[in-house]
């Protein structure tokens, strides 16, 4: 029996077990929406396409499944670009479907035409323009396969309107044929045995864990490795959550705003085991001064990450979980009392700290949210000072509990990502920690949250300014503050009420402690305007050109 390509597309999505699509309709994508009318797949109407792609991203991070979003051609497609780049930088599996003008009109600057496959080549893992109706099932199969395997990432499918309306005989392929795509999963045995020997010979090992640990579901193996060899564990922003925050070997985040003890441990270690991390410039700061005494073992599924920023002593290409499993089979339990004691001493001597005098401090808000939230909560952040404070002061102990825009640093990511996370994990509390700058970039999605009856808890860490830029101007522009102050005091609690949410204002530590229990128990979405001190800086801070052990605080 022949069906339309649009029908075939929706069948394919059902075959891939897609339950939810985030999207925004339009002319060129109309045939697909017409089929969704009769589908079991739930469509979530956002208020801007950027919201759809961030929501799909948040859904993927919370569930580990592939997130799907859909938009029309032209502006619908270009509005997705930031979100696609965001998913690309953080290796998040999403499939993006865009409508396109009919094939005969491609290249004519038709109404709402844009070359979205051309535009997104640099920010997708792969993309497709379907010109032949018969290609569709194979393309969808490939798209989901590519997005979710190896190093995950976004895949875009551009579907011209006339192709969507064409008739095809439909069968969903079982296998994909991709001769040029064969990720390496198992670590090379010789490399694994050399790494194990190096680890056992080391006196001062440190594990540096990144987002790859989460993607590969290797939190248990990571913990096993750390405890077996008594190695302290430090995290990238993306890696937070994959090792318990209250564990004695936990060092917190390293790098530009890392803890002093994590940066010291990395500087002093003789063996740095990098697991699913990519030596990003925010972690390494000054290349020459990073882990100067260490033999670096770099475990990553993407061979291109190895040797890109730092030349490792020993590379292992493979899936983090499988590589750690094979290392664990070889190494033996041992104590590293002297080294562990030294690291513990640094933890005691140089804790994260802030002065709690005067007005409400943002760091305190984070700490109190952490105490009130419980371990099943998913914390979503936006980008800026509040994000760094969340990374520093929140104690995560579950891998899929921290959702943040790491690589691209997209302000505006938080609210739509929290919507996606909550829809993917309806049973878990989802808490958005955002800033007054960030949330205003995608504020329109409050309507989506209310419409979907999501019990989101939104905490706006409101310092009435763009705090991170203000901080940069303080250190790098001799306090010449320009374009960072909001001279308009937006009442976020009232705004929340306009959208039909409960609204709270918190101005003092006492109000915070008093009202948090009620806020956490609220059934619907809640907007909490936290009026915090406007003078706080994110510390420690490694200034440009310094080594990570030379942070100021």
């Amino acid at each position, binding site marked *: 029996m022949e069906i339309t390509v649009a029908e075939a597309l929706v069948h394919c999505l059902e075959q891939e077990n897609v339950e939810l699509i985030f999207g925004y309709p339009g002319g060129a994508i109309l045939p697909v929406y017409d089929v969704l009318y009769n589908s079991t797949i739930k469509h979530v109407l956002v208020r801007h396409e950027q919201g759809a792609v961030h929501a799909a991203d948040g859904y993927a991070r919370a569930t580990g499944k592939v997130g799907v979003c859909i938009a029309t051609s032209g502006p619908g497609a270009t509005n997705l670009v930031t979100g696609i780049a965001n998913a690309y930088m953080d290796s998040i599996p999403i499939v993006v479907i865009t409508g396109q003008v009919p094939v005969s009109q491609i290249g004519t600057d038709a109404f709402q035409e844009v070359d979205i496959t051309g535009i997104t*080549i*640099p920010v997708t893992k792969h993309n497709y323009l379907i010109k032949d109706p018969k290609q569709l099932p194979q393309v969808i199969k490939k798209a989901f396969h590519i997005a979710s395997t190896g190093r995950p990432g976004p895949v875009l499918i551009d579907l011209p309107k006339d192709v969507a309306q064409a008739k095809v005989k439909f069968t969903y392929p079982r296998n994909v044929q991709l001769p*040029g795509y064969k990720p390496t999963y198992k670590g090379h045995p010789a490399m694994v045995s050399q790494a194990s020997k190096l680890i056992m010979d080391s006196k001062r090992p440190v594990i540096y864990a990144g987002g790859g640990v989460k993607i590969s579901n290797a939190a248990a193996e990571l913990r096993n490795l750390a405890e077996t060899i008594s190695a302290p564990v430090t995290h990238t922003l993306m890696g937070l959550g994959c090792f318990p925050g209250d564990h004695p070997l936990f060092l917190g985040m390293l790098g530009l705003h890392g803890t002093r003890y994590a940066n010291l441990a990395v500087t002093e270690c003789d063996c740095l085991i990098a697991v699913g991390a990519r030596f990003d410039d925010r972690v390494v700061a000054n290349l020459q001064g990073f882990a100067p005494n260490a033999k670096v073992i770099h475990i990553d599924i993407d061979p*291109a990450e*190895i040797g890109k920023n730092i030349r490792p002593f020993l590379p292992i290409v493979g899936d983090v979980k499988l590589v750690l499993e094979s290392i664990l089979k070889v190494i033996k339990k041992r104590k590293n009392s002297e080294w562990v004691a030294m690291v513990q001493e640094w933890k005691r001597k140089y804790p994260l700290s802030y002065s709690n005098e005067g007005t409400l401090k943002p760091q305190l808000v984070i700490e109190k949210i952490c105490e009130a939230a419980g371990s099943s909560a998913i914390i979503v952040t936006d980008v800026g000072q509040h994000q760094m404070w969340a990374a520093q002061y929140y104690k995560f102990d579950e891998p899929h509990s921290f959702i943040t825009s790491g690589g691209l640093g997209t302000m505006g990511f938080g609210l739509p990502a929290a919507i996606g996370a909550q829809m993917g994990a309806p049973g878990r509390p989802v808490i958005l920690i955002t800033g007054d700058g960030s949330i205003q970039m995608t504020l329109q999605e409050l309507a989506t949250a209310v419409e979907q009856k999501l019990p989101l808890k939104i905490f706006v860490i409101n310092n009435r300014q763009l705090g991170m830029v203000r901080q940069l101007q303080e250190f790098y522009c001799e306090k010449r503050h320009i374009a960072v102050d909001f001279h308009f005091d937006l009442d976020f609690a009232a705004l929340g009420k306009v959208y039909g949410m409960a609204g709270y204002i918190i101005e003092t530590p006492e109000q915070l402690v008093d009202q948090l229990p009620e806020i956490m128990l609220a059934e619907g979405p809640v907007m909490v305007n936290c009026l915090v001190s406007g003078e706080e800086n994110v510390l420690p801070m490694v200034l440009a050109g310094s080594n990570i052990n030379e942070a100021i605080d």
Partner: protein
Amino acid sequence: MTHTLTVLVENTPGVLARVAGLFSRRGFNIDSLAVGRSEDPGISRMTIVVEGDDQILEQVTKQLHKLVDVIKISDVTRDDFVDRELVMIKVNTESSTRGEIMQLVDIFRARIVDVGPKTLTIEVTGYESKINAFENSLRPFGIIEMVRTGKVAMLRGFRSTTLNNNHKKEDTNSG
């Protein structure tokens, strides 16, 4: 150092844009790029000449490998290989210079492919230094137009860069 890469890619629309875009995006310089159908109609073979030290080449190869359409990359630089380029040159000709130009064509084993009242169009193939020498010897007469295909390369003897042939310099994932 100059490296010559032979790259097998799926013959899909946009594959050239993906490869070329990758070079500019990652800051690698292409000296020459030639592409065409291979012995397998579904697969194209690219010859890419790229400048850079071993570390840059390692990144180039690894990043190319990440493109889903790229099937196989062989760096033939350190192997025994033949490379050729085809060039057409249109040169100014007066009756007084025609004989001299035709002598040069003979010496360089080039061919005249078109004769106009005041021009000769010459085709020459060969390795780079020969072509450069030919170009220099024609320059005094006035070169009106020149077009080069870019270098193509092939391993000598039995060995090849085809899919099933395990060329020893083929990039293997570190590890």
